[in-house]
């Protein structure tokens, strides 16, 4: 129920320590029981909440992981605290997605990818990054500015296109986003581009008019990917936003941006949990090569606020 412990700035490294102190009494006992892991779960709960994992997601997670931990033999090579962390960590990795999910680029060419999300999450930059990545893989991407609202958004994508050497569709703020998308796909077909990357304006999930605009685009052109671009620093609201984008658009994956900072990134778990969609990429910087595939194990360690400890535990 309520959690009590001394908070400190150094707490990132402290979860194992705290769990170990919780388990002092337990050392030598054979099994993890519901009673003896209850205090430990309280600590895990705090760690998850401090990482911005959504309150309800935490609740469910704790229940599930408690169930999994109960009855486990305490390995001789691990302290009970480490043992609990291992269970928690494994479960996190499992939930975050245990295998890589590449972009869907097969089927009838050109394929189209649409980027959507809240304002300022990193859509336009990610469009540039994806274009660069795909071009390096030998594909022929085509960047499409369909944000007719944000000042200089079209210009921004043109600059990025130039930087990565990828052509950019010629749209203006007078055009309707749906028409831009249709015309761009037609032009891609004509010119032999194989991957259309559509950048859309940032919008709030509660803005029904703009959410409808995205639905209209997805009906007007065949999209193989609708990527929800989310900021890794997002707090508790991540679930609400992701849930709405997913239910309106049937997103196919998630890109988590700005993860190179010191955010614990609990949004990753929240978004994955409510959408069930894979996190396909992470943004690790502003430069156009700063896009990486998502590593669930790293994300799990980060959420728990621990680095090296885990590699030790993993060897056990």
């Amino acid at each position, binding site marked *: 129920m309520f959690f009590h412990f001394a*908070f400190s700035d150094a707490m990132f490294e402290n979860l194992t320590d705290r769990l170990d102190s919780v388990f002092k009494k337990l050392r030598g006992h054979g099994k993890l029981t519901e009673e003896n892991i209850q205090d430990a779960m309280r600590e895990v709960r705090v760690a998850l909440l401090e990482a911005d994992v959504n309150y309800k997601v935490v609740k469910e997670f704790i229940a599930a992981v408690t169930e999994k931990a109960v009855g486990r033999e305490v390995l001789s090579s691990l302290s009970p605290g480490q043992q609990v962390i291992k269970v928690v960590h494994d479960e996190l990795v499992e939930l975050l997605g245990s295998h890589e999910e590449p972009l869907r680029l097969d089927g009838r060419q050109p394929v189209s990818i649409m980027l959507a999300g809240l304002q300022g999450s990193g859509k336009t930059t990610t469009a540039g990054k994806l274009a660069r990545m795909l071009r390096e893989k030998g594909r022929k991407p085509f960047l499409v500015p369909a944000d007719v609202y*944000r000042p200089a958004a079209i210009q921004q994508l043109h*600059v990025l296109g130039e930087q990565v050497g990828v052509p950019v569709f010629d749209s203006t703020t007078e055009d309707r986003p749906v028409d831009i998308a249709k015309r761009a796909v037609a032009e891609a077909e004509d010119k032999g581009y194989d991957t259309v990357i559509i950048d859309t304006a940032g919008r709030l999930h509660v803005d029904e008019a703009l959410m409808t605009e995205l639905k209209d685009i997805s009906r007007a052109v065949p999209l193989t990917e609708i990527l929800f671009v989310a900021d890794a620093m997002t707090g508790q609201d991540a679930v609400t936003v992701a849930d709405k984008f997913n239910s309106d658009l049937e997103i196919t994956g998630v890109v988590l941006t700005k993860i190179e900072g010191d955010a614990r990134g609990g949004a990753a778990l929240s978004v994955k949990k409510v959408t069930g969609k894979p996190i396909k990429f992470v943004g690790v910087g502003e430069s156009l090569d700063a896009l990486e595939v998502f590593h669930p194990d790293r994300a799990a360690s980060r959420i728990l606020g621990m680095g090296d400890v885990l590699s030790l535990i993993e060897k056990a």
Partner: protein
Amino acid sequence: SKTRETLASRLDTLFLGKKQIDEELLDELEEILITADLGVRTTQELLDAARTRVKRDQLSDPQALKEVLREKIYEYLQASDQPAELVMPESGPFVIMVVGVNGVGKTTSIGKIAAKFVRSGQSVLLVAGDTFRAAAIDQLKIWGDRVGVDVVARDPGSDPSSVVYEGLEYGVANDIDVIIIDTAGRLHTSVNLMEELKKIRRVIGKKMAGAPHEVMLVLDATTGQNSISQARMFSEAVGVTGLTLTKLDGTAKGGIVANICRELGIPVRFIGIGEQIDDLRDFDAREFVDALFNREPDETRQS
């Protein structure tokens, strides 16, 4: 207003159903506070304080508990060692330097704040200190056009400190009342970029004694606990004197600013409630506290 009503109804359904203060009620309050991004530590403190009061004053009325919580958060928001209002200098331009992590809404807020000053009869100059992000300069220029004020800018890629220097010269030469400096978004953990920001600040101070008069940190209400780290590190680097909290038109509550106000003593000056020029409000701590507790009724039942 709508927020007040919803708050009232939300809390009333929570409190009226209860004849007494019990752990279940405290649990529900915990959920409200944490999902508003107040953070687990502050939430814990608030609830502890509330429980102590309940015991000490023998409160049995859930409404009284509600008041304790609201007052406490209100207190946090007021805990500032800076003047609550922007204070203009006696003479010469009022210089505002705007900083923050990527994409929080710096440039947009600058446009809105400029419009606010213009409406009150001041002359305003914008300085395009973000020479890095693609089309950042064009974006600021469009805002300059919208507001009807001049923008000092150089080519993309040029040294931001020199642009800022030039901007101050222009501002002084043209008797400008308010100079607002845009800077590139940067993560507070990036040492190089934070050094660059310190340099910009130094250049401003050298050019004009006492400036910048306001270092405004822009925070995104959607951001969770990381806002604290942002506020700490930007403060250490460039001495933040005021906050603008953007994107409050969404469903995020931005509760973390309560912690920031309390811990760092920085007041919230403005809130952003949309992408348009008029979507800026002066911060009102009472309204903000009300909105923190405001939740859509069905939101609590979704799993």
